[in-house]
């Protein structure tokens, strides 16, 4: 299937205008200048498809599901036409040695040029024995595949930050891609699962400009992770007015008030759900009446409970009574000592006579 992408698309019945429109939307979403849509369309239409290797590690396949079942299969799917997906266990027809061969061939043929997509965390416990493919640990595979990669895309919270496998007490010793690979450009696309448009956006950017999009300090594309859920939430006006749902079935909940008190992690979660939404723009968690879990943030699983408001401390009075007793005891002890000292000074009092005014 070589040749310009536009021809491939045309064969699938996707017109140039449809593609242009798609690129314009993609550019807008990524906060690129309007002219970038056109540039993107022209670049991608003519580009030779880069080789992509997709390695699944300790994961649940939710990320793959998210991408492959995204709302407009033809359009999101055409991103896969832009690339040459040379290895993806879940999707590929090949199996066993055949599959491994495909992987090695792709790596050899495209040395230094292929994109590596990783989903799932990498277990380090028991020398990586918790997750092996073809008798080799994830760690080993990742190191080998990363060696020849031009860039790595860590798909989902597990690959980006360790995710649920890393949740306390982290029995497998799970770590993220960037914990292991230090010498390659890495893009994290966290989320459990991540928003499909984000990965296509990153790919489109890479294809158009040959570079990764601008990243924040957690290596997330700023275009999608630049603002919190709370900033873009349609329920934000209620927060500003101090109107909060107190339970999931009260009047406030019915009126669609802010879910802050019900534990919404929107204010500390950087993601694009509030604007991109899910299921083809149908809805998203907050719109369906549930607070944000913060799934795209590191260690969201251990951040003090999904239903505890952010302003609520975990258990602030745990040591309060003990501290109060200790404080009172210390106070009483000092009081006794002070009174003894004062008493001693008083009993040692020598009545001052006139002569005692002089040295």
């Amino acid at each position, binding site marked *: 299937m070589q040749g310009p992408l536009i021809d491939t698309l045309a064969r699938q019945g996707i017109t140039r205008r449809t593609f242009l429109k798609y690129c314009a939307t993609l550019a807008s979403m990524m906060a690129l200048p309007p002219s970038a849509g056109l540039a993107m369309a022209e670049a991608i239409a003519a580009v030779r498809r880069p080789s992509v290797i997709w390695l699944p590690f300790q994961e649940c396949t939710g990320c793959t599901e998210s991408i492959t079942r995204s709302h407009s299969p033809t359009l999101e799917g055409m991103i896969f036409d832009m690339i040459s997906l040379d290895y993806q266990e879940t999707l590929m027809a090949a199996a066993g040695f055949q599959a491994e061969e495909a992987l090695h061939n792709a790596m050899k043929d495209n040395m230094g040029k292929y994109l590596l997509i990783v989903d799932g965390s990498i277990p380090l416990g028991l020398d990586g024995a918790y997750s092996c493919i073809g008798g080799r640990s994830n760690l080993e595979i990742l190191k080998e595949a990363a060696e020849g990669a031009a860039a790595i895309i860590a798909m989902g919270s597990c690959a980006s930050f360790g995710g649920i496998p890393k949740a306390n007490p982290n029995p497998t010793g799970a770590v993220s891609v960037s914990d292991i690979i230090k010498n390659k450009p890495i893009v994290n696309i966290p989320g459990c699962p991540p928003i499909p448009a984000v990965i296509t956006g990153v790919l489109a950017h890479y294809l158009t400009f040959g570079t990764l999009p601008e990243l924040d300090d957690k290596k997330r594309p700023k275009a999608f992770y630049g603002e919190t859920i709370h900033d873009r939430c349609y329920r934000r006006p209620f927060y500003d007015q101090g109107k909060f749902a107190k339970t999931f079935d009260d009047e406030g909940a019915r009126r669609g008030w802010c879910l802050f008190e019900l534990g919404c992690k929107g204010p500390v979660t950087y993601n694009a759900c509030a604007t991109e939404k899910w299921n083809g723009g149908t809805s998203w968690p907050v719109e369906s009446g549930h607070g944000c879990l913060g799934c795209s943030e590191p260690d969201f699983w251990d951040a003090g409970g999904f239903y505890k408001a952010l302003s609520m401390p975990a258990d602030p009075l745990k040591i309060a009574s003990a501290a109060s007793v200790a404080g009172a005891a210390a106070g009483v002890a000092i009081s006794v000592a*002070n009174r003894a*000292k004062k008493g001693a000074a008083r009993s040692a*009092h020598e009545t001052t006579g006139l002569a*005692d*005014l002089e*040295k």
Partner: protein
Amino acid sequence: MSATLEKGIRVLKEVIDAPIASYFNSCVHCGICAEACLFYTETGDPQYTPIHKLEPLRRVYEQEYTLLGRLKKMVGLSRAVTDDELGEWQELVYNSCTLCGRCSAVCPVGNDIVYMVRKFREGMSASGHAPEGIKGAVNRTITVGSPMNVKLPAVQAQMKHVEEDYGIPIPLDAEGAEYMVMLSSMEIMNFPEYLAAVAKIMHQAGKSWTLCSTAFEATNAGIQIGNSDLARVIVSRIVEGAEKLKVKTVISPECGHAYTALRWEGANLIGRPFTFEVKHIIEVLGEFQQQGLLKTKGFETDRLTFHDPCQLVRRGGVIQQPRTLLNMVAKNFVEMPDAGYMNWCCSGGGGASAIEEGEELRLQAFRKKKSQFDAVKPDRVVTACANCRIVLEESLEHYQMDLPVIGLTEMIAEHIPDQAPHAATKS
């Protein structure tokens, strides 16, 4: 010959109490007390900030009575108070503080700074750091009976003069009299008219009264130097005299600290409540006026203003009476700015006027008072404290201002119509 630093610190440990602890912990260094202190406002020197005058006391408190203070001292973060340091502080605790109480009145966190200065002086005097001038006054009060060396014969000579001039007998040691009248040396020496005035007033009111031969002097330099032991000796004489004569009320003369010593400190010094009442002469006059026992004739027509003695207003609660009395006899009475509760000190109270080396500073601080006078330009100033009066007179002279100062009691008495001896009081 036995004053030592150690003794001073021990006394401070005795007198530090919960209010002092609360006050030191409340101070936020806002500096507002400085703005209320005439020694700061007139010099602009921040060392005269009232709370700063207590710095050694604060350290003693912190190092002796707080756990953190003890630790700080142990690791060298807080210096121990030294004898030299207390010596340096003499100027701040005595020369530049008249115990006027303006700082205590304005402190936003409610610190009674004067209360602390009074207590700090206990330690200063016990460690030998009281100024020579006040020490001399205490010495004379204890040994002779008066800070100005006034003895009974001098009082008797005065009594004789008054009896001759006005034909009113002055009772001495009259048992069972209702009032026992006290004097201050200042009045005996400089303002003899006071005794005559009291005699006329008592006579008109028809009240029984007496002087006491063993306790005629009301001033208490022990309070000013800040030594309770010595103050107690002085106040005990008055208590003994009053109890011996079985009087109902002891009248404090026109003297601020005498009033404070007797009215508020006396009972605490001797450790039991008094068996008699203590009133300032102005309070007594106010009562007479209310009861219709005080009748005056004629009015002063020149421009008069009233200087509130600090111990009478802020530290004593006598504010309205002098104004009522003045209005009885004056047509042209004007109030100075800040008059009453927030009046500015004469700059020589609290023993400060007895400190020779503090005179220059005192005169500088007086400019505050001067500005008050300049604001209303009175012809004469009336006051109710002999010490204020003498300090005002001296300072006015220094600034070459021709402004007579008179006592309120005398002025009232001048308007009491002459009466035949033993005439009916109800005219």
